[in-house]
């Protein structure tokens, strides 16, 4: 294909989570041609979260799937276009940024990286072997398969508590394995306490998850953990893991974009990366607070900074 035929956009937003969709609302409202490119779920991790209680404007909380759907509708109302596929590389060509994708190449005058993060794995024996066959990372997707069954949930932060609370709808009992101490908010802890009092949830503090054991064709049967140096067995039908987040930044590995030690994208105070015209916002940004409200705010800021960036640069002519 000749270079002339590569599709061009003023802005390409990599990702379609809350930061990306908010940025798109801002850019498209100002008639800036904007394409979002998403390899996973529109709405990102917010869309797979059962209930979001701390996003402003929803006094009773909001289902993650609904919030994601509404953000999408709002962005599309102003003309944002969402395409499905994966970006594999970004190349800085000065006035244009070349994006290599699974659906072909495209060019953008400015790029916003808003790819967010995914749940980490724990890296213990049995985790890979029983993936989707007893080991899960999405309670809202897979919880329904565990009606009246025992579950283990691994993690002690907000995600682990929120998802464990969702899983109480289905499970007969949940063992919550917390490696050190609880990091979840007081509100979630209070809510969890009700299920602890009912005997539906048991929280095991200072308990590591060492191995997931099962039978081929039957699925998971137990989890082996350690507490105070002593091995403990937790009989279970399934394991849900929520132990932190890892950045979705693999596609910039060979670019001049600078990452921090963990792999999150470094930006200046204008949310611009080391490559002029390439910005980052939301959970993917080094130093982000991993909150949906913050991601939305960063998306708005990035959109305004992108507008400033484009305003002082005449539209480049494609050769």
């Amino acid at each position, binding site marked *: 294909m000749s270079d002339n035929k590569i599709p061009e956009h003023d802005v390409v937003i990599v990702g379609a989570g809350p930061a990306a969709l908010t940025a798109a609302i801002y850019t498209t409202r100002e008639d800036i041609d904007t394409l979002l490119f998403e*390899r*996973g*779920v*529109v*709405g990102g991790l917010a*869309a*797979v979260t*059962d209930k979001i209680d701390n996003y402003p404007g929803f006094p009773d909380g909001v*289902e*993650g*799937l609904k919030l*994601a*759907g509404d953000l999408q509708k709002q962005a599309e109302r102003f003309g944002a276009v969402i395409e*499905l*596929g*994966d970006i594999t590389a970004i190349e800085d060509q000065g006035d244009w940024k070349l994006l290599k994708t*699974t659906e072909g190449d495209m060019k953008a005058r400015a790029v916003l990286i808003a790819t967010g993060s995914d749940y980490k794995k724990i890296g213990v024996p049995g985790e890979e072997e029983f993936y*989707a*066959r*007893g080991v*899960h990372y*999405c309670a*809202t*997707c*897979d*919880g*329904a*398969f*565990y*009606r009246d069954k025992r579950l283990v949930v691994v993690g002690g932060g907000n995600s682990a508590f929120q998802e464990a609370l969702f899983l109480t709808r289905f499970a007969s009992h949940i063992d919550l394995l917390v490696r050190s101490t609880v990091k979840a908010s007081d509100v979630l802890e209070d809510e969890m306490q009700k299920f602890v009092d009912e005997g539906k949830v048991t929280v095991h503090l200072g308990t590591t998850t060492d191995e997931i054991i099962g039978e081929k064709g039957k*699925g998971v049967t137990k989890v082996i953990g350690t507490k105070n140096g002593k091995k403990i067995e937790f009989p279970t039908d*399934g394991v849900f893991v929520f132990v932190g987040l890892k950045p979705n930044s693999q596609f910039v590995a060979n670019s001049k974009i600078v990452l921090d030690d963990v792999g999150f994208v470094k930006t200046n105070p204008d949310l611009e990366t080391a490559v002029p015209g390439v910005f980052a916002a939301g959970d993917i940004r080094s130093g982000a607070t991993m909150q949906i409200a913050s991601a939305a705010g960063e998306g708005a800021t990035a959109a305004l900074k992108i507008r400033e960036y484009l305003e002082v640069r005449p539209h480049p002519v494609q050769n």
Partner: protein
Amino acid sequence: MVKNITIFTSNTCAYCQMVKKYLGAKGMSYDEVNIDEHPHRQAEAMEMSGASTVPVTIVTKGDDSKEVVVGYNLAKLAPALT
């Protein structure tokens, strides 16, 4: 040639929405089995996929052979639809 597509979904599954959106964008029709509304059909999804997860997409070809795609996996779903 695709003869028929069935997707097993649940009410709260965002990845299920993405599969439906992808098929919609391709102009392909499908039957949906929601396991929250039809819990007795959950075992069917597990038997077809070997996994306890949704979405599960069953693509029946013209010769009645079936391709099963577990999760929202475009790398597997796209070729299964040809």
